[in-house]
């Protein structure tokens, strides 16, 4: 079971986050707070900066302006402390295509200093045990995404950052994974506004700036 | 100072050549920078017109 949120510190506190990408502002003043264990859905058209926001929160990108606090740690100074406690699933699986699913997860288990038994446990949970020993490049998109989710959950993170998780997950896989996500703080980006119901918070994003939900896709 | 000699350029020819190369490099560099300065100046004018255009709106 995921750990109870240790201290009441909010999962995420953003204040005027700015980030340039390719010389242009990708995020231009985004502020939000997310309580421990809460879920936030980020909606917005393509190129609104959703993925950039997630990559900043996951410590893959350093903020260029504003203040970012994740799980009580200030980024980018304390990024190393945050990395052990967040799970990130992006457009790319973050796996070695020539290694098998199991080998990838064993590598990540070692890097996160997690017992390698957990690998078999998670492979079973996402329904990938059967194909675990074949190279990732032989997997279908759905299987790659499931393996990527398993990689993100390996070290039992308190905060999950999911970039359009539903994008290539078939319904059965979605059900399979849903229970694993419970009880963790989550930031989910999506195109489908219906994902927003049931979430604790919703953020509209357009051209790097917060935007009201109406006319978001105008 | 450069003695025009019809045989292989005497030693002084080489010396002159060396200093001319140095001069050519410096002048070439200054020339390129001058072109850049001109382009810069053209941009400034362009921006100035833009700003005036904006003020009239």
């Amino acid at each position, binding site marked *: 079971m995921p750990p109870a949120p240790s201290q009441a510190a909010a999962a995420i506190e953003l204040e005027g986050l700015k980030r340039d990408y390719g010389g242009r502002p990708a995020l231009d003043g985004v502020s939000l707070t997310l309580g421990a264990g809460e879920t936030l859905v980020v909606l917005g058209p393509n190129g609104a900066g959703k993925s950039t926001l997630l990559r900043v929160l996951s410590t*893959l990108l350093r903020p260029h302006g504003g203040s970012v606090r994740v799980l009580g740690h200030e980024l980018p100074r304390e990024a190393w402390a945050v990395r052990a406690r967040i799970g990130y699933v*992006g457009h790319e699986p973050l796996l*070695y295509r020539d290694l098998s699913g199991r080998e990838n997860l064993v590598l990540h288990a070692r890097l996160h200093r997690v017992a390698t038994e957990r690998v078999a446990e998670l492979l079973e949970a996402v329904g990938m045990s059967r194909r675990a020993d074949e190279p990732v490049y032989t997997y279908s998109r759905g299987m790659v995404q499931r393996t990527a989710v398993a990689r993100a959950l390996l070290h039992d993170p308190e905060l999950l950052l999911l970039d359009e998780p539903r994008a290539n997950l078939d319904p059965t896989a979605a059900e399979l994974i849903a229970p694993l996500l419970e009880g963790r703080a989550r930031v989910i980006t999506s195109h489908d506004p219906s994902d927003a119901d049931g979430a604790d918070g919703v953020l509209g994003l357009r051209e790097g700036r917060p935007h009201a939900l109406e006319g978001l896709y105008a | 100072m450069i003695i025009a000699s019809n045989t292989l350029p005497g030693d002084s020819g080489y010396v002159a050549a060396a200093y001319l190369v140095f001069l050519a490099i410096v002048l070439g560099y200054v020339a390129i920078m001058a072109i850049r300065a001109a382009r810069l100046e053209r941009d400034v004018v362009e921006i100035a017109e833009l700003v005036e255009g904006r003020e009239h709106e």
Partner: protein
Amino acid sequence: MRSTVDALLRKELRLELRNREAIPAMLLFSVTTFVVFHFGLQRDSVDGALAAGVLWVTMLFAAMLGANRLFVAETEGGALDGLLLAPIDRTAIYVAKALAFGGFLVAVQLVAVPAFYLLLLGPGGGDAVLGLIAVLALADIGIAVAATLVAGLATQTRSRELLVSLLGLPLLLPVIIGAARATAPLFAAGGAESIPAKWLLVLGLYDLVFGLLAFAVFDFLLED
């Protein structure tokens, strides 16, 4: 740091065993280059400085061939981001990669150097194997250290294949000068003479300077 390097190194070796990309390619390239030298120099055997030159030029270019592939596995599927998300000391990524590449160089030379003795080296050169091993070891460290740094610098860019060699060759010249000058007496026609110590010092100094330098700056290539 040690356990991280161990985990990453295990991954490097597994990837190489699985794909068998770097070592066979570098080995075939080396032996083929010896044949090219044979016809290029129109000589059946070489010795002394010429032999050292042929050996080290071949090793250098084989290393560049291998260096081109060093970070390719990381760029596909976002694998590098996967490593950057782990709570590890990121320099371990460089250390593991450099150790793996050093291992590849040794593996290639285990076959390529005997092939060189067989194909090109004159009769006299055979007896100074120990000295040669010392020079090979020092030079391989230098090549692995510098080539891995250059690969890290160039692989994330658009013109990757060009830049690795364009950057690597000049940067590795001191290693080639030192190695060639150290091995020339070993291949002397009249039987191996001793290696002038100063060249081992140059190689050692290069390994040290570039090792420390890479250790200090490599993280900046991964920060984004």
